[in-house]
């Protein structure tokens, strides 16, 4: 049985013909966009290299989840922890909002599955948890938790009052009242090492800055840090890789040669909606569980996908291997807070993302040489 690995306008094609068709599309594009970027480090290296060659705008499909972290961290600083260190050291954990339990379940489980065992003061007792969010939010911990019921949109204000209370300033009643604010303030201030877990996307840039500010205040007298959790961890990995490659955490353009960064203009959502400058997208959707949402692009697309069912919506599509599943790969892991090498579970004959993107770059390079 023949297995199709490439398509042009939804019709099966040879990979060679598909590469030629993709190169034709890129030749005629005024402003290409390279996005999706759901791939591993080696695939992303090729994607950034191709983007540089063709003067593309670049962003990850999940950047919206990490920018509410990146912007406040780079504008006002932060205290950041590794989950594994917090597992061993944090004696008190404050979980903010409703999203962290879902998007950071693996990270939170690292904290609930063990008791602190490092530190003269912290390892003496059991870890205590406090959640500040909606009553109906569920979280993966089995431990007893002090819950403070608070609407998500009120939390940032409440934290402002906690900061004021810790600084000895008076506060208004606010959403929770003075006594509850004082309870939260005591919980964090009396920790030997407090860990604050939250999803930046839930609180936005200013809200995240408030959380970083609270932790900075605490460090004047005790120890505390944060564990931001993200709906799309690989977007964080891609932002880090783009930073060492091009100087910026994605949302960049190679249109004028050197990388230029603009978090609004170069955002994936803007470019794929047709409201941006891009008239053609090269989209990579090649991780396990990758969402085909980016295929709703309003501009024509060249697609590298792990799911052949989504190939029909693209002008040109390639079926590629999934890094870490079909082939060995290097991926960002939120539990580790860094990159890990992942061995393939099965060996696939499918081409890697890097192989297709490098072949495409080579084809474009040959044409440029011929034209010269």
């Amino acid at each position, binding site marked *: 049985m023949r297995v199709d690995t490439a398509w042009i306008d939804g019709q099966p094609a040879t990979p060679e013909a598909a590469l030629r068709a993709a190169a034709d599309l890129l030749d005629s594009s005024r402003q290409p966009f390279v996005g999706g970027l759901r791939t591993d480090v080696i695939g992303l290296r090729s994607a950034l290299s191709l983007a540089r060659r063709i003067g593309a705008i670049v962003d990850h499909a999940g950047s919206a989840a990490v920018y509410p972290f990146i912007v406040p961290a780079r504008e006002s600083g932060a205290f950041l922890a590794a989950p594994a260190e917090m597992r*061993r050291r944090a004696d008190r954990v404050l979980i903010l909002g409703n999203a962290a339990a879902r998007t950071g379940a693996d990270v939170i489980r690292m904290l609930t599955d063990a008791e602190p*065992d490092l530190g003269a003061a912290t390892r003496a007792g059991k870890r205590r948890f406090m959640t500040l969010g909606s009553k109906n939010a569920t979280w993966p911990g089995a431990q007893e938790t002090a819950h403070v019921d608070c609407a998500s949109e009120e939390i940032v204000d409440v934290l402002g009052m906690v900061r004021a209370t810790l600084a000895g300033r008076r506060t208004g009643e606010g959403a929770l009242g003075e006594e509850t604010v004082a309870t939260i303030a005591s919980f964090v201030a009396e920790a030997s090492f407090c860990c604050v877990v939250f999803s930046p996307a839930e609180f936005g840039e200013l809200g995240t800055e408030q959380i970083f500010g609270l932790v900075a205040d605490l460090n004047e007298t005790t120890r505390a840090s944060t564990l931001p959790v993200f709906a799309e961890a690989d977007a964080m990995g891609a932002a880090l890789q783009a930073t060492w*490659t091009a100087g910026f955490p994605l949302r960049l353009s190679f249109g004028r040669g050197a990388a230029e*960064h603009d978090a609004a203009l170069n955002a994936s959502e803007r470019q794929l909606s047709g409201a941006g400058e891009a008239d053609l997208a090269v989209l990579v959707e090649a991780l396990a569980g990758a969402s085909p949402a980016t295929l709703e692009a309003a501009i024509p697309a060249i697609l590298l996908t792990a799911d052949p069912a989504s190939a029909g919506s693209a002008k040109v599509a390639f079926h590629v291997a999934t890094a870490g599943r079909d082939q060995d790969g290097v991926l960002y892991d939120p539990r580790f*807070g860094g990159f890990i*090498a992942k061995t393939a579970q099965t060996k696939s004959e499918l081409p890697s993302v890097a192989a297709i993107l490098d072949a495409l770059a080579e084809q474009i390079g040959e044409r440029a040489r011929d034209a010269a």
Partner: protein
Amino acid sequence: MLTRLSGGHVVDPANGRDEVADLYVEDGLVVDPPANGRVADETIDCTGLVVMAGAIDIHSHIAGGHVNTARLLLPEWHRAFQARPGETALSKVGWTTEETGLLYAEMGFTTVVEPAMAPSSALHAHLELADTPIIDKATLVVLGNDDMLMSMIREGESEGAIADYVAWTVSASRALGVKCINAGGSAAFKENVRKFDFDDVVPDYGVSSRQIVKALQTAVTSLGIPHPLHVHCNNLGVPGASSDSIEATIRAAEGSPLHLAHIQFYGYGTEGKRRFSSRGQKLAELVNSTPEVTVDIGQVMFGQTVTISSDELRQFAGSKQASPKKSIIFDHEANGGGVVPMNYKQKSYFNALQWAIGLELFLLIEDPSRVFFTTDHPNGAPFTTYPDIFALLMDRSVRAKWLEALPKSVVKMTSLPEIEREYTLTEIATMTRASPARLLGTSDRGHLGTGAVADVAVYRPDADKAKMFGKAAYVLKDGELVVKDGQVVKRKFGRALTLRPEPDKAMKTRLDRYFDDKYGLSARWFEVPEGALGRDEPFKVVPCRA
């Protein structure tokens, strides 16, 4: 292909050469002149030029999580971020991995050591290094605030067991050596300790900084790791306490090799009305009289930069002086660390004296084979300031001009105006080529003898030494011409130099269980598989000493 570099002034102190001669390279190596009348396939005319081995930087923070965080923290310093590009604070810093490789190569540097790789960040660091073109790279893995080591010392485990643990860490992380940063200080800071001296004890472990340094020094020596334990002392930057810490650490070498990093930051006394003075002369004398010790300087130069360090305690303290006012402090496994922007101002008494103390140390430490050329990039200054530092070392009239621009109060507090020494070309080549290769155990480089890798830097002599060393006339990497007239003409990827001590199987099993039980992590995640980097032959193994 046989290449002849003809008629250059060969400065190769490792082989005692300081003469006009031809140099031949073939298949990536320096070779003997052909005896059979064979004509070179290519000749590079080096008449009137200075020919040296490629330079080696033993301590420059160029890759890894903290370095990348500095990039992330400071987008406003990128040329392209600004509406009107041009000269920005760090436009010459070599910010991306690519720029780092290209800018180093253009100055004739062909091997650079990233000196602070956390075991948990090893793969990240090697991924960045794999994306850094042209130069060869190496890393030092950081130990000394890790629970495993401190627990082993507390439990009185044998030197052999500790050495097994160090061997596993070096091997898994693909490091070329071991570094110890404020031993115990980060662990103490996590327990809210704000000051930590050499004989202070880490709470809950009962282990002192001294014990940690000595345990690691013993392990490094017993494993035959060529590079001595690389130590970042306690109390970096604290007037008085910094000087006391480094003095105690140097005396603790006790006849075994020890390398002290960026010692400029420890040359601070408390004399004078500002309670900040130079102890450069005293520190230089101590180094001169302690032959088992080597040092690098960490020279401060004026301008905007960013400090990147795994010394979490001192970075937290330094964050109060951040300029611009923002910083990121990490509570990671073991060391943690911090990224704090810093603007060293020529008109600042403190910063100007730091600059003078660095030069005092460079010039008062007598043996150029025991003092190494660093700015602790980017902590004292970006590596792109190296040409100016060469000029300051080689030309006292340049120093005099710089001194004139300093606050008068600083000139009174430094012996620099009285120092007449000027480094010679041979001393520069010793400090930046021959000795670093010896210190790292990389005998295949740092010299131009037969069989050396053909990493060659050719400079156009100039009275202006900054001009001479800023842009090499030619650079060969593994025998290929990669830089001409200060511009990269060919891009390729070098390799990471690593040790691969054979880890003890029982220790491997023990660590598998330890990381799983204690941290909920797989020990495999700390390993750097060769295939993960996506480059052909990303590593070159350097042997341990027998």
